[in-house]
């Protein structure tokens, strides 16, 4: 078996309870390798074999700087997590978690059994929804130039400029407040929530200000209600984008994981 060879590692995607669910035969993971299930201690780990000349520490250090490679690998990882999540409650594992072999994975399922069980219990029958709110930063109408414009055009220009900057600040403040309001409204329908950093326009692909980048863990039977609340929050100058349902990436962290490894930046997950 390749996974015991020195030049191969075992890449871990996700963990579920052992409920006898099956994966598509031909599900491929990162590096195009077939995904397989390791069942142990009442849990199932979804893994594939990866070559360490590409998934060892040194090669990864280089290739993760390559956004094309990173994007492709992230999509492959996500595809596997999604496929598993379609069948059963799933705890996604962070990108590029690589073990020496299957024995190490079984050891993990033994050692962290209770953590996985707790996490899987928390997310069962719930879905993660992503909500991003954007405010259009269109410049407010310029301030009145006044009489000075005739006699002292330079000063008038500067004053106008200053007024415009002030109103921009005010717009920012209002936009942030709207983000807060939306988050509060969504929290009331969710079991847990996390606020994440607003994405850069290069990442979001949108020029507007992202005033909210939230994740919400919602009971399965309240999904429609959640979507209705989202719809009701859209309004003039503000767009609210709903993504999902996601596998519960934002709510799967082990409770006692070291603090500095916690992925969340949020308030009340």
């Amino acid at each position, binding site marked *: 078996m390749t996974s015991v060879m020195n030049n191969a590692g075992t890449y871990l995607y996700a963990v579920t309870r052992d409920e006898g669910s099956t994966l598509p035969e031909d599900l491929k993971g990162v590096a195009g390798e077939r995904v397989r299930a390791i069942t142990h201690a009442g849990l199932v780990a979804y893994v594939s074999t990866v070559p360490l000349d590409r998934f060892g520490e040194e090669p990864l250090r280089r290739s993760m700087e390559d956004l094309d490679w990173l994007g492709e690998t992230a999509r492959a990882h996500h595809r596997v997590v999604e496929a598993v999540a379609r069948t059963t409650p799933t705890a996604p594992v962070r990108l590029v978690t690589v073990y020496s072999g299957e024995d190490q994975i079984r050891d993990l399922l033994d050692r962290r059994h209770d953590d996985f069980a707790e996490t899987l219990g928390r997310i069962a029958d719930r879905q993660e929804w992503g909500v991003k709110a954007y405010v259009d930063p269109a410049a407010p109408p310029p301030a009145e130039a006044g009489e000075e414009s005739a006699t002292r055009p330079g000063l008038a220009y500067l004053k106008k*400029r200053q007024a415009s900057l002030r109103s921009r600040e005010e717009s920012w403040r209002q936009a942030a407040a709207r983000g807060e309001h939306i988050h509060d409204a969504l929290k009331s329908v969710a079991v847990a929530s996390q606020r994440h950093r607003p994405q850069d326009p290069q990442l979001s692909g949108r020029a507007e200000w992202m005033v909210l980048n939230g994740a919400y863990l919602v009971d399965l039977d309240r999904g429609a209600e959640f979507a209705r609340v989202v719809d009701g929050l859209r309004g003039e100058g503000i767009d609210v*984008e709903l*993504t999902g349902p996601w596998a519960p990436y934002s709510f799967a962290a082990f409770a006692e994981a070291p603090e500095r490894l916690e992925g969340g930046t949020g308030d009340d997950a």
Partner: protein
Amino acid sequence: MTEPGSVMRQSGLPAGRPSGHEPANLGDILERVLDRGIVIAGDIRVNLLDIELLTIKLRLIIASVDTAREMGIDWWEHDPWLKGQDRELREENRRLRRRLAAAEEGAALPRGPTAEVESVDERTAEVDERDE
């Protein structure tokens, strides 16, 4: 309603496409697979140091931080990832900022929000001076 795993997007903007399931965008995926999900410390074969993942995370978010702070959104200041408890991380942050700036110059990318905000601040200061 919908099964997990078929991520779709809905937006108030005119879609231009029939509604239904679209593939999730890469930014959302990267954010999740890098920043969230279970982190298992310990005897993994390939143990990417936190610093390396931080590097990538910073590359993704770096330009948005100043803009957001201007807006009064600063809750990530409490994020241990960015709080800078570790001097190395702060140094790495500075190094990345320099590299990003250099890369943007080199690639002649449109100037990011960071640069924009800084130049606006400069102009504000100028106006204040001349007003007095």
